[in-house]
Structures are given as structure tokens and as C-alpha cells.
């Protein structure tokens, strides 16, 4: 070894030898220096890392731990399912379905324009709108599309755009469309009830939202065993209404066709179960316009049978005559000399049709809907007792339903009556009622003189399935049972041969009253040329099951017996058939429906509600007429209208 070491340098060239003479110590020194430098750097780095480690793990450990936790921790909302609304047979009227809402974090969207282009092709939102939303600086949450269908959500998910997320959100559906829409109301974007029952029962329908606090990874997936808190969502309470979906549809259909046929501005109908007060149908129909034919009102509209008031006209005569009978002022066959006009205060009231002075009984007066005869009876009764009867029947205060926006009506104190008050009020002027209030009057008569508070909510079903039945209201006696029976008998006469012949139903005896009143001009004393036509009644008269009220706003023809009574008959027939009510027992003599048919023939009245091609023909004929208003006068009162500004005629 020593030898070879000694011989090796001699083999090198001289220059190398010269260099090697100095290279040994230099290289060693340089290597040592390099090693020292590296060691120094390593030491510094080690110290730095150690320092950082101490800072991260010891000094700032809590801060970093909390920061990490904040990044991972997420509170996931668990939205409560809103309670459903059913009709009385459990058919769905309103249900909530979980959908997904697509949202985005603009801070994480790299290319808003490209992302918007991709999203716009899937969600039904304008691309420009999406670009604007995705470009919003300073925002960490923007909606892309709310409560989208599952297929849309899947399509968005497939795009896999970073920064786009999904939220579960409930969407309200009304499977039957606009059926009973003003009754049900609607739910807004923030799942709050905005009208009708959705608003009225919002607190119990909504339930209670829950939430869970979990840690999530970068892909927003929950990290196992990291759930920190869970508040379970409580499902909202279901409502079971007294509304019957089938009957509601029948009521709306008949009303829509009649509103269309008569060119009315709208129509209302109500069906009430006499024995329970259950509101089985409440229809609101809007008249035809240039944009659309007559149609059922939408959820944004008022439930007008409860919220809107009108002057009832002749249907109010039932109250005056019932009170007079109950007070013993008159009997059903007490006779009066009835001219065709009467002077009350500074106004002249007339009957609808001129006639010589007649010897009419109370029954005749009601059957012929005589204004003059009714005023004579009311004068005998006196305004205080008349007012007492009006209030006892429920006028001037909201019904027991407590529906949002329900109208109390307008009922003057007798001391505030004008000089014409005792003439106007008994025949349904100077008093304003909702259609349901007026229906309740007939329900009271049908219920043998005892009121039956209306009910719209049959029961509630809580999230655990516990069912709570809403009690049927207890009524109070307004008139004696004999009085109610007598009035019922008189009301059957109205249908048999009076103004309400078109309300007759083959197989059943119907009791009811027509009403035709002038429309009050909003904010001005006096009346317009328009009319409100109504018919309210119940059947079967011998054992009443249902009360039905129909009101048309400004129809042509104007009379309730001509336009509202046929709709009444169609709705009542449906109700009796759906419930399987036995026909009325046959009595001696021709049955009511044959008498009524004969009376209608004599008056040349077509009592059918036009449907299908018959309706199309009527609409086409009206459209072709020069005024576009149909065959009859445009609703102006007949020749025997009373003094201008006084509510005298027509009533019928």
C-alpha cells in the first residue's frame, strides 16, 4: 500500500504534481468549510423548523386547532317537512316534497363565464343572470336555482363545477292545481304561509327545523365520528279539512260555466253540511277577461265567500219574516193587502214587477219575493226586533271560522237607521254580509232554528300520527223549531212555484230563496247599474243535509232565480249524490220538481247551466253581438226601478 501510494504521484504530469502539492490541505479545508456551512445551514433550518414546530404545536396550538376545526366544522340544516293538507277523505290538497337547491360560492368559481354557460344549459336560469351572480365579489353564497327537480340536480352534479353546492329545500305542491286555492293560500319562497290556511296555520304546519354539526372534508363529505351536535327536525302537523275535493270541483266547474255564460264579473259558491257546519266547498271564480276565460281564482286571491261583503237583497227577507213569525207578529197564512209600491221615509219602494193590490199571505209574500209585503211585515215587527234578529242570525260579526281577513259585515245600529232603514234593511239593503254569513242564516233555519257554527278544520295529525279531532261547534237557538219549520215550508214554495223554480232537483224537495240586489258604488252614495244575483237554499227540505249558496257578480240576466238557482241545483244535486242521500218521500199531488218545471216553462226560463258545446255557442253568440254583451240589457235595472239612490228594486 505504501509503495503504491509513493509511486502514484510520480506517474502524474508535473503540473498535476505541482497542484497536488497544495491540493491536499486545500481540499480538506474546503471540505471542512463546506461541511461547516452545511451544518450551519442545517442547524439554522433545524432551529427554524423546531421554532416553527414549537410555535405551531405549543405556543399557537389552540389557535391553529381552532382554525382547522372552523374549516372542517359545518352546521348542516335539517329542514322540517311542512305538514300536508288533506280534504275530508284524505285526498292531498297540499303536500311538500324535498328538492335540492343549487348554490355557489363565487370566491371558489374560477371562470364565472364558463361556469354560467354550463349551468345555464341545465338549470332554467338566464346565462347573463348566472354570470352576474357568480361574479359577485365579497359574497360566499349565491343561489343558482332553487328547489329544482331531481333530474336537474343530477345534471348539475355531473358538471362537477368546483364551488357549486346543493342544499335540501322543501317545495310546496298543490296537486289539484287551483282547486280551492283561495282557501288553501300559498307558501312563499322562505317556506312561510302567505295566505289562506297556509298562513292561518303556519305555526303548526311549518314544524321545527333541525340541524347537525359535523366535520367535513374538502369534498364536503362528512368525516366519520365527528358529529358534535344533532337537533332532530320535527315534521309539521297535517291538517284534515272539511272540504270535499270532488264537491269543490263540481262547485267550481258549474260556477265557471255559468259565469262564462252570463258574462258575470265573478261568482262565489259555498256548500255547508247543515248537521255539522262543515264547509264542504268554497268556490271563488273570476270572470272572463280579454286575456282569459272565466276561471277559478288563484291562491293569491281572497277567499271571497268569507272576506267580501255584499248587500244580500231578497235572501235577507228570510230573517225579517222568521223574526216576525217567531215574535207572533204574523203567521204563515196571515194576509196583507200588498200594493206594488210603498213609501218609507223619503223613498218609494216597489216590487220588481208591477201588480194590482194583492191579498197575499206571508207565504205568498216570500214566494213572490215582494219587497212591499216584506216591508209591511218588518214595520209590524219594528226596527229593534228586526235588528235583534239580524244579530242573532250572526250578521254584523265574523263567523266562528276565524279565517284570515274574514269580514264581519256591516250592520247599522237601529238608532242610526236612515228614515228609509226599516224599508231597506228587511229587503237586504243597508246591510252588508259575506256569503258564508248569509248561508249560516239558512243553515239555522234548516237546523230547526239553532245555529250551527261553520267548521273548516276537521282534525289535525301530529308528526307521531296522533290525531286530534276539532270539535263540532255548539249552536244557539235563534228562532223556535216551529218557526223554522214554517219558514222551511214557505221556502219550498219559493222553489215549487215562485222565483226559485230553477233550483228544483228531481227526487228531492228543495227549500231556498232567490236574491237580486243592486251593486253599491264604492265610495259613493247610491247604486250602480250592476247587480248581485244569488240563490241560497238547503235540501232535502224534510231532513236537511246540505245548504248551498251561489252568488254571481253582475250577470246577464240579472236575476238570482235565473242565473244562480240553476248553479245551486247542479251543486246540490252533486252533493246529494256524492253523499248518497235518500230522495224525499213522495207526497200527494205532483212533486215539487214537476211543479217547478211547469213554473219554469210558463216563464220561458231555461234552467240548465250550459256546458260544453251549449256554452261555446252562448259565448260565440255574445262575442258576435255588436255590444259584445249578449242578448239581454247590460244589467240596467228594469223599468220599475225605484228612486235613484235608494235600494228599492229589483229584488227577486
Amino acid at each position, binding site marked *: 500500500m505504501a509503495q503504491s501510494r509513493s509511486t502514484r504521484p510520480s506517474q502524474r504530469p508535473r503540473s498535476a504534481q505541482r497542484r497536488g502539492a497544495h491540493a491536499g490541505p486545500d481540499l480538506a479545508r474546503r471540505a471542512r468549510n463546506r461541511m461547516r456551512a452545511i451544518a450551519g445551514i442545517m442547524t439554522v433550518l433545524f432551529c427554524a423548523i423546531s421554532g416553527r414546530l414549537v410555535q405551531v404545536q405549543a405556543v399557537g396550538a389552540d389557535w391553529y386547532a381552532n382554525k382547522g376545526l372552523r374549516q372542517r366544522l359545518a352546521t348542516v340544516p335539517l329542514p322540517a317537512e311542512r305538514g300536508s293538507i288533506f280534504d275530508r277523505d284524505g285526498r292531498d290538497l297540499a303536500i311538500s316534497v*324535498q328538492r335540492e337547491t343549487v348554490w355557489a360560492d363565487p370566491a371558489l368559481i374560477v371562470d364565472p363565464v364558463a361556469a354560467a354557460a354550463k349551468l345555464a344549459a341545465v338549470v332554467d336560469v338566464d346565462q347573463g343572470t348566472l354570470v352576474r351572480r357568480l361574479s359577485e365579489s365579497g359574497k360566499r353564497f349565491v343561489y343558482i336555482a332553487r328547489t329544482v327537480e331531481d333530474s336537474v340536480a343530477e345534471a348539475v352534479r355531473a358538471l362537477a363545477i368546483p364551488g357549486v353546492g346543493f342544499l335540501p329545500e322543501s317545495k310546496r305542491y298543490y296537486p289539484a292545481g287551483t282547486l280551492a286555492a283561495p282557501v288553501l293560500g300559498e307558501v312563499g319562497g322562505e317556506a312561510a304561509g302567505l295566505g289562506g290556511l297556509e298562513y292561518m296555520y303556519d305555526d303548526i304546519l311549518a314544524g321545527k327545523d333541525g340541524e347537525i354539526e359535523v366535520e367535513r372534508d374538502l369534498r364536503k363529505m362528512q368525516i366519520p365520528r365527528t358529529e358534535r351536535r344533532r337537533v332532530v327536525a320535527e315534521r309539521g302537523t297535517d291538517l284534515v279539512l272539511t272540504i270535499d275535493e270532488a264537491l269543490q270541483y263540481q262547485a267550481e266547474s258549474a260556477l265557471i260555466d255559468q259565469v262564462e255564460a252570463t258574462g258575470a264579473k265573478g261568482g262565489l259558491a259555498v256548500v255547508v253540511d247543515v248537521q255539522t257546519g262543515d264547509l264542504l266547498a268554497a268556490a271563488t271564480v273570476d270572470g272572463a277577461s280579454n286575456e282569459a276565460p272565466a276561471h277559478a281564482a288563484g291562491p293569491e286571491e281572497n277567499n271571497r265567500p268569507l272576506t267580501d261583503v255584499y248587500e244580500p237583497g231578497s235572501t235577507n227577507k228570510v230573517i225579517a219574516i222568521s223574526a216576525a213569525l217567531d215574535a207572533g207578529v204574523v203567521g204563515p197564512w196571515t194576509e196583507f193587502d200588498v200594493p206594488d209600491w210603498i213609501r218609507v221615509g223619503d223613498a218609494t219602494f216597489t216590487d220588481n214587477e208591477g201588480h194590482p193590490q194583492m191579498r197575499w199571505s206571508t207565504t205568498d209574500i216570500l214566494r213572490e219575493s215582494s219587497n212591499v209585503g216584506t216591508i209591511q211585515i218588518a214595520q209590524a215587527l219594528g226596527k229593534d226586533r228586526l235588528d235583534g234578529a239580524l244579530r242573532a242570525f250572526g250578521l254584523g260579526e265574523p263567523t266562528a271560522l276565524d279565517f284570515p281577513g274574514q269580514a264581519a259585515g256591516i250592520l247599522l245600529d237601529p238608532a242610526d237607521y236612515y228614515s228609509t232603514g226599516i224599508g231597506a234593511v228587511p229587503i237586504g239593503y243597508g246591510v252588508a254580509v259575506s256569503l258564508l254569513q248569509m248561508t249560516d242564516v239558512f243553515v239555522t233555519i234548516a237546523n230547526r232554528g239553532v245555529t250551527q257554527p261553520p267548521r273548516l278544520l276537521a282534525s289535525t295529525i301530529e308528526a307521531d300520527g296522533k290525531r286530534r279531532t276539532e270539535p263540532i261547534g255548539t249552536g244557539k237557538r235563534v228562532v223556535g223549531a216551529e218557526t223554522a219549520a214554517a219558514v222551511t215550508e214557505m221556502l219550498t214554495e219559493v222553489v215549487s212555484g215562485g222565483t226559485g223554480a230553477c233550483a228544483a232537483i228531481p227526487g228531492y224537495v228543495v227549500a231556498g230563496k232567490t236574491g237580486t240586489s243592486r251593486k253599491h258604488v264604492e265610495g259613493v252614495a247610491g247604486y250602480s247599474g250592476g247587480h248581485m244575483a244569488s240563490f241560497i237554499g238547503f235540501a232535502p227540505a224534510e231532513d236537511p243535509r246540505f245548504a248551498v249558496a251561489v252568488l254571481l257578480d253582475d250577470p246577464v240576466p240579472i236575476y238570482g232565480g235565473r242565473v244562480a238557482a240553476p248553479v245551486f241545483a247542479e251543486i246540490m244535486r252533486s252533493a246529494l249524490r256524492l253523499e248518497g242521500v235518500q230522495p224525499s218521500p213522495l207526497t200527494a199531488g205532483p212533486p215539487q220538481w214537476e211543479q217547478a218545471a211547469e213554473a219554469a216553462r210558463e216563464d220561458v226560463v231555461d234552467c240548465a247551466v250550459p256546458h260544453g258545446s251549449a256554452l261555446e255557442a252562448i259565448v260565440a253568440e255574445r262575442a258576435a253581438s255588436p255590444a259584445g254583451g249578449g242578448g239581454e240589457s247590460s244589467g240596467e235595472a228594469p223599468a220599475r226601478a225605484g228612486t235613484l239612490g235608494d235600494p228599492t228594486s229589483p229584488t227577486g
Partner: protein
Amino acid sequence: MSASAARRAVRTATAPSATERVRPPHLRSAPDLGRRRRLRAALVAGVTVAVASLFLMVACSVLIAQGQFERARLVERQEAAQRRYEGLRLDVAERSSPDAIVSAATRLGMIVPDQVDYVEASVAASPDPSDRTATTLDESWGEVKASLGSEP
């Protein structure tokens, strides 16, 4: 000091100590093999238990994690099934609504008659209310809304 005590003292002073005694080269003190074996066994057992415990803990942790994933998957499936149920319920409700039935009938060529005629039945032949065909809440609630309430 007695004579016997003095002899004992002389013997003690002259006797070599155990360490000073020269041990024959082929002899040595036998190690306590049993104690060492027990120690080794205890050590091995301890390590084994520790490793097994560790393994068990890891296995449990893995199982729990897997269970969590399974649970998350089941919750997801349940939510999907719930959404599907709600969707189907909505579909049924929409298809059975009066308007949908009338629309379907119209598509099939049925028309609304201009005039409806009814057969007048005598009282004797009139239907018994208890024979009605229309379902009512009392009769059908359990079938139709089984998941929403047991009693009508």
C-alpha cells in the same frame, strides 16, 4: 472469651472467602433459567397483548369508520327513498285530481254533455246511505294514509 469462641474466631479468620475461593474452570453458577423464562414470557405476552390491543383498536376504529360510512350511505339511501316516495305521492295526487281525470277523459274522447238526465228512482228503490260507493275518511284512511296516521 471462652476457648470455643476463640477457636471459632480463628477459624473464621483463617477460612477463605467465597470469592477468594478459586472456582474450577468447568464449573459456573447456573443461571436462574425459570425466572428468565418467566420474564421473557411475560415480556412476550405483554408485547403480544399490546400489539393485539393496538391491532384491536385499529380494527375497531376501522370497523367503526366503516360503520359510519355505511350509516352515511344508508342515510343517503333513506333520503333518496323518502324523496322518491314524496315524488310518487305527488304524482299519484296529481294524476288522481279531478282536473287531471277530466283532462284524461277529454283526451280519450269523452265530452261534457249539454244536458244531463237523471233517472228518477222511487223511494223504495233509493240507495241506502250505507251502500255508498264513495270512500270516506273513516273507511279508507288506514289504507290511503297509512304512513300519516293510524286512526281517522
